[in-house]
């Protein structure tokens, strides 16, 4: 009898572990599909409009041109407001960032701790803006399956300001519909709502609305005139280009 119970327990354990493994594999595959949707273009150029909305509804608008190659090279150049026009940020692999301030006529290497702060006064952190794939940065777990979306819980692989991100992935097209960000104390601090539209053969996040639940502020990041695979080269992401307004 004891032997039978032991066998039953072992079998149940094996089945449970196998199921967990299947779930985990499914979660990994789902996140990979989401990454494929978000990061498959070789390069991208476009315009970005950042609308910051205060608690009282007052809006500040910033505009920029953005160029990106792969997942780790990005040039971001502000075009308005006038006080920021011409300021450019070049992000390169290995956390290397340069800031170009036209008033000083020189590029300046900026400390990677700048990533600790919000991006250009918005509710997005530099980490949120990073184009590294989610599979690289997070370990996923499938926590729910809704009618139209899978719900994944992402746990950071390395040190992060977030303890987890809960992402809802569209069941048919695999783009993210929303993300909830939790701080190290496991409190939900920010939530992002995504609007995806197809541009050329790729899905593009035409608007991301980030709501800061602590401050009740919102930031809408809207992209337009997006072009994919235009043949940007590594030479387009150099300090030389950074200084050529």
């Amino acid at each position: 009898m004891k032997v039978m119970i032991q066998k039953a327990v072992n079998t149940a354990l094996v089945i449970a572990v196998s199921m967990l493994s299947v779930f985990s594999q499914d979660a990994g595959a789902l996140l990979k599909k989401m990454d494929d949707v978000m990061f498959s273009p070789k390069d991208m150029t476009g315009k970005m409009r950042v609308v910051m909305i205060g608690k009282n509804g007052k809006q500040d608008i910033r505009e920029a041109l953005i160029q990106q190659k792969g997942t780790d090279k990005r040039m971001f150049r502000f075009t308005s407001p006038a006080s920021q026009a011409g300021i450019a940020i070049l992000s390169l692999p290995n956390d290397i960032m340069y800031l170009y301030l036209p008033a000083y006529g020189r590029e300046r290497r900026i400390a990677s701790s700048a990533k600790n702060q919000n991006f250009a006064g918005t509710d997005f952190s530099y980490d949120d803006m990073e184009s590294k794939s989610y599979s690289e940065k997070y370990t996923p777990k499938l926590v729910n399956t809704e009618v139209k979306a899978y719900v994944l819980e992402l746990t950071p692989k390395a040190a992060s300001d977030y303890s987890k991100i809960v992402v809802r992935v569209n069941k048919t097209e695999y783009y993210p519909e929303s993300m909830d960000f939790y701080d190290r104390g496991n409190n939900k601090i920010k939530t992002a709502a995504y609007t995806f539209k197809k541009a050329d053969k790729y899905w593009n996040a035409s608007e991301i609305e980030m709501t800061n639940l602590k401050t009740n502020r919102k930031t809408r990041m809207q992209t337009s005139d997006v072009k994919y695979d235009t043949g940007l080269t590594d030479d387009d992401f150099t300090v030389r280009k950074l200084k050529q307004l």
Partner: protein
Amino acid sequence: MFMKKITVFLIMLQAISFTVKGQDENISNQLQDENKLKISGELLTDERFLLKENNEWAWNENRLTMKLEKRITEHSKFHGEIWMRNIGLPGPVASSDLYNKGIVDPYNLEIREANIQLYGFLTKNLDLKIGRQLIAWGTADKINPTSNLNPFDMEDVLDFGRQRGSDAIVANYYISGDFFLQGVYIPFFQPANLPLGIFANALNPEMTLSEGMTLKGFSDTLQMPAFNIGESSTAGFRFKGYTKGIDFSWSYVWGYDGLPVTKKNTFVPADLYGGVNINSRLSFMRAHIIGTDFATGIAGIGFWGEAAVFIPDKNLIMTNDLSALYPLSPEPVTRDTTLADKPYIRFIIGADYNFSDGSYLNVQYLNGFMHERGKNLDDYFFMRYEKRFFNDRLKIAPVGGAFIITDWSRINDNHAIAYIPQVSYNATPDIEITMSAAIFDGKGDNLFTNLKDYDMFMFRMKYNF
């Protein structure tokens, strides 16, 4: 049937030609927009008053900066920056001065930059920049010992490291994405301009005379280098690169020190009680300047450093002609080589860090301010801590300023502090209002002790358009 096919074909052709024409017009309009002259700029109002009794005005500046940009072709660009200013306080001392608008309402015009940039000139790796320009070298924050090509603009001593544009040709040759070589040629020497108003004596060292002598009068003559290719030009080159996570550069300049040095003092008796008049002859010193800099990041902290070795072209000997006082003076002529007879090094190191709560810390240590030479290099410690609030609209810097030590063996009598806290508020995205104070204190002969009677409140409004 045949005619029908031709008609369909013609309609399709027309439709295609309309589409292509539409696209061409779009591209053409886009190019025309990009090639238009773009005008932007800034209006700055800068008012300062002293904190002591009567609150005298210390500074009055209304500056309109016009920035002009025009893309000439895909690979060339025009850039200009002009300052139009009312600066200073009305200074008529005679009724005739009231005819002079420059005295009644001081103004000036300054072309800071006006140049043409050619990208991929002759070869795709070569960029040229010709015309008046600022040539910014170095990795440190505002104070750059390796940046010695443009003349220093010391008008406002609190605007550390400001320089004026030089008429120059600059060629950048990009060896690869990570390395480039820069060559600079400046045909005419332009001296530094000295501090204005209450700052006028901030950079002047104390003059010590032999016992029994009293200064009654002072005059000087400034000898400029001859304006020819050999005498007045400055040349330099720099190799800059990035490797193993470090930005670095090596540089060399064959140029002039923009501040004059005294070559000869002639002492003339003014009375029978030891009073003397001094006539000085000043000239500018040629020097070889070898520089290096770096910037990197370790554990999220940004680090940078710069060093420049100044090698005077000739041993500078200052002659004191006391022959008019001889035999009352022990010697008719004395020679002094203490100013800059040997190579000396100015250097700076610094670090900064961004905290997750939106605050920022920047510290720097400097050995030798831009007006110091030879053995007389003081130690400066700069620090700034600021925190941003409300989407970066409000910026408070409760800690800011510098500490100087001029003699480590007698710190109590040879130190100074400049405390400069600041609050900035963006009333709109393009209007920034800044209020700050500058409190100076110290002992001994140094930059900030010379300003200790000039504690001030500063108000600035900046509008970008």
